[in-house]
């Protein structure tokens, strides 16, 4: 069936040679040069982290190793995989290399598996085209792999489809697929970026275990310095298509050789950095309009003593689950269950938790973008849940929201100037000329050139787009901003800049923030207080230092423990053997389910923890 030109015996000869060797690789798309002559090697058993921000060319490099780029890409230079010249191979021979000599894991577990084929089939298929396996043999091999990547109940799940698996499980399946034929190289392209932090830790553990077992070379592509510190032996830093640094991980973190690397490292918040401080702190990243403030403490103190800017009382949001002949409701998703908190003027409350915990729904319920089932949201002495019409629109003017995806939250068919001006005009506050002036002012304020007002969103980078969203939110002079994962999709250095901007604006305008995030390190940086959510409920809430330095709830502890620390000397990933794999429980409850009442006890003043 298969006739690979790559003989195993040949490989023995090159065993001492690097598994992957890249020399002067260039990749061009038309006029645009994505990769500009890079070189590096990966040796057997070694884990090399390829680090860089969006547009640095790291993903293009990974795809060009497998020769998976579209035909419109022009490749130059040399790529040797197991001694084989990848540039000169024909398609049929390339197929033998793909999966056979190198396996690959991608970032998006949700889209990287074929939704209409069973996971078992997709894994066993890897065997079918590499070696003389019958279907039943391939299935048996695949099932063994399921155990190795620790998919519980593998036999049963073998015949199921990807959509029944969680993100972490899907990534395990991807790993199983990539490692099926014991490739000499594993390319992992941002394999944990889309995962929750606790799941990320599990996957990194798994990868480390498997690598130890098989002595595979790993090329680990990531933008996350914390992950780099956890997994890499050596680090290759890329920027604008070029390698700026190639060193061992210890050296790199101890003594970054390049300005860019230094900048990258300084932009990474480390959990625990803020020990002993109460107020948020800027990163001090250089942006044109914030330089005057310089790095340092955010002097703006909160005012817990004043009446709350926003108070949420027993907020509950449930979505009906329908079924049966008449589409009767036969259950509810308890997305937000009996959540109460207050946010003081000029204060930042962070809402943290993993995907599906209800933190975003909480934010949207406040603005009634989704209709809450019960509870009250008091803002300026008004219950937003019982107002409507003009009063609600006025409240929406005073409370603004910034969304995660800076591209998705801007209308792609509208110029950014028009996007910023639209709310001003709609709410009838100013004339056209005044609005234009205000747009120019706002754009300058968030660090954009006012001259770019006539451009469309896609002409801006992610960070710039998020600045536009911020400008738009500010246009209505709100006093309260809900930031829903507002920096999660941004590169580290950009992330730092945007956070600095948010902190500056808070100080300047006296804003209150509800900061929704899954990233503990960022949360530590920006918050005055922190609330941890699990399955629609708050399980722990209190001053930031109290919650992060003295976590009481087991879930909070687990969450904090899973955060990778960007310091290779503190590496925690060790051989753990078969670790327990647990998935988040579902918040779907049958009809008539009464949530168990929650009881909190106060650990220190203002620090409440759910009693278990």
């Amino acid at each position, binding site marked *: 069936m298969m006739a690979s030109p790559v003989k195993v015996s040949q490989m023995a000869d090159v065993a001492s040679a690097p598994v992957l060797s890249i020399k002067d690789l260039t*990749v061009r*798309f*038309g006029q*645009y040069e*994505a990769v500009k002559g890079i070189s590096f090697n990966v040796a057997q058993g070694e884990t090399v982290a390829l680090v860089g921000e*969006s*547009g640095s060319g790291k*993903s*293009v490099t990974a795809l060009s190793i497998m020769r998976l*780029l*579209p035909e*419109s*890409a022009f490749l130059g230079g040399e790529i040797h995989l197991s001694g084989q010249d990848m540039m000169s191979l024909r398609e049929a021979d390339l197929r033998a290399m793909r999966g056979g000599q190198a396996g690959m894991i991608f*970032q*998006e577990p949700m889209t990287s598996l074929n939704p209409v084929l069973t996971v078992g089939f997709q894994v066993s298929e890897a065997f079918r085209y590499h070696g003389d396996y019958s279907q039943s043999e391939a299935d048996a091999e695949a099932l063994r792999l399921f155990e190795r990547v620790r998919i519980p109940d593998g036999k049963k799940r073998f015949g199921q489809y990807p959509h029944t698996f969680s993100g972490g499980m899907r990534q395990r399946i991807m790993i199983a697929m990539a490692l099926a034929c014991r490739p000499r190289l594993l390319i992992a392209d941002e394999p944990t970026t889309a995962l929750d932090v606790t799941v990320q830790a599990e996957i990194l553990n798994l990868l480390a275990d498997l690598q130890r077992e098989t002595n595979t070379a790993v090329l680990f592509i990531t933008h996350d310095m914390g992950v780099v510190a956890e997994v890499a032996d050596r680090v290759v830093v890329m920027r604008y298509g070029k390698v700026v640094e190639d060193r061992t991980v210890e050296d790199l973190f101890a003594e970054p050789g390049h300005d860019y690397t230094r900048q990258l490292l300084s932009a990474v918040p480390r959990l625990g950095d803020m020990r002993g401080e109460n107020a948020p702190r800027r990163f001090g990243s250089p942006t044109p309009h914030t330089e005057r403030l310089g790095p340092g403490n955010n002097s703006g103190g909160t005012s817990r003593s004043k009446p709350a800017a926003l108070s949420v009382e027993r907020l509950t949001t449930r979505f009906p689950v329908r079924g049966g002949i008449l589409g009767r409701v036969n259950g509810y998703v308890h997305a937000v269950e009996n959540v109460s908190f207050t946010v003081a003027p000029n204060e930042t409350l962070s809402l943290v938790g993993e995907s599906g915990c209800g933190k975003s729904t909480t934010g*949207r319920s406040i*603005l009634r*973008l989704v209709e809450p089932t019960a509870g009250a949201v008091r803002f300026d002495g008004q219950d937003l849940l019982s107002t409507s019409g003009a009063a609600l*629109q*006025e409240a*929406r*003017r005073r409370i*603004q*929201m910034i*969304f*995660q*995806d800076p*591209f*998705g*939250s*801007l*209308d*792609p*068919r*509208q*110029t950014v*100037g*028009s996007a910023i001006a*639209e*709310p001003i005009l*709609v*709410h009838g506050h100013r004339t056209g000329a005044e609005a234009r002036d205000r747009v120019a002012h706002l754009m300058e304020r968030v660090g954009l050139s006012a001259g770019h*007002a*006539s*451009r469309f969103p*896609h*002409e*801006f*980078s*992610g960070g710039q787009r998020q600045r536009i*969203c911020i400008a*738009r939110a500010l246009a*209505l002079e709100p006093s309260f901003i809900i930031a829903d994962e507002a920096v999660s*999709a941004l590169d580290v250095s950009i992330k730092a800049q945007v956070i600095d901007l948010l902190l500056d604006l808070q100080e300047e305008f006296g804003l209150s923030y509800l900061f929704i995030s899954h990233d503990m390190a960022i949360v530590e940086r920006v918050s005055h207080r922190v609330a941890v959510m699990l399955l629609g409920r708050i399980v722990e809430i209190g001053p930031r230092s109290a919650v992060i330095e003295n976590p009481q709830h087991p879930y909070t502890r687990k969450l904090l423990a899973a955060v990778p620390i960007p310091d290779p000397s503190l590496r925690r990933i060790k051989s753990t053997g078969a670790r327990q794999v647990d998935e988040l429980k579902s918040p779907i409850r049958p009809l008539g389910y009464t949530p168990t009442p929650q009881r909190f006890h106060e650990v220190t003043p203002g620090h409440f923890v759910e009693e278990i």
Partner: protein
Amino acid sequence: MKSDLSIPTKASPPSELRAVSSLAWRAFVQAFRTNATAAVGAVLFMIIVVLAVAAPWIAPYDPISQDMIVRMEGPSMAHWLGTDYFGRDTLSRLLYGARYSLVIGLLSIVIAVAVGTVIGLTAGYFGGRLDIVIMQVMDVVLAFPALILGLILVAMLGPTMMNIVFAIAFTAIPPFARIARAPVIALREREFVQAGKALGFSNLRIMFRHLLPNILPDILVMASLWMATAVRTEASLAFIGLGIAPPTPTWGGMVREGFENILDNPSLAIFPSLAVLILVLALNLLGDGLRDAIDPKLRTEP
């Protein structure tokens, strides 16, 4: 996949242009730049439009004057494409017919697009019961075979050009409602719609100012395809009984008349059929090019 991977382009149209028109214009430019077939389509279509507009000056004969001496003749020097059943010059009738066929095609589709889009937009945006009711009504209309529905409408209203336009438009409304609804259902969950709500925009504003421009490309592409259907439907209506009143030359009517005499002089059916084919070809190439240009997934990217 990070969207940052795409290459920023430096086109900045004047800010006075409204989003919609600038979008269409950009799509056109894109289509030309990225897609040679789209350019071919556009050129073909322009030629047809120019010929139609110029018909009174370039047509060699009066399209409705009959000459019983030269009935149903094949192509000759005097009549390049021959003459029809009444001795009328086929070429002249084709040239004039282009005007009517373009009007029938364009107008009926414009009506269908306008009504269908509003219906689909409303159903998709509000969802729930309203959606179910609206789409159920659309299903009711779809239950009639389009030709039969058209026939009933034309029989009821009389076969004037406007009525035929209306009948064709009516039969095309449900498909356009569906085409509009599908992307709206996906778009309404997008953050910019949520952002609009958070900014206190009215539903109407979100629907027409933000959603409409985003679904318009899909709709334009379908519209270019359906124009072909409209021209063909006119011919089919004529075939089973009701076309536009003679002596008005329409391509559909000519195909039908030619078909009557196909065994005596096949060219009478062939030439107008070819004209329809070329128009359809032009529109399809244009539509495909438009879509390929608009669809970011198909754009060349790293």
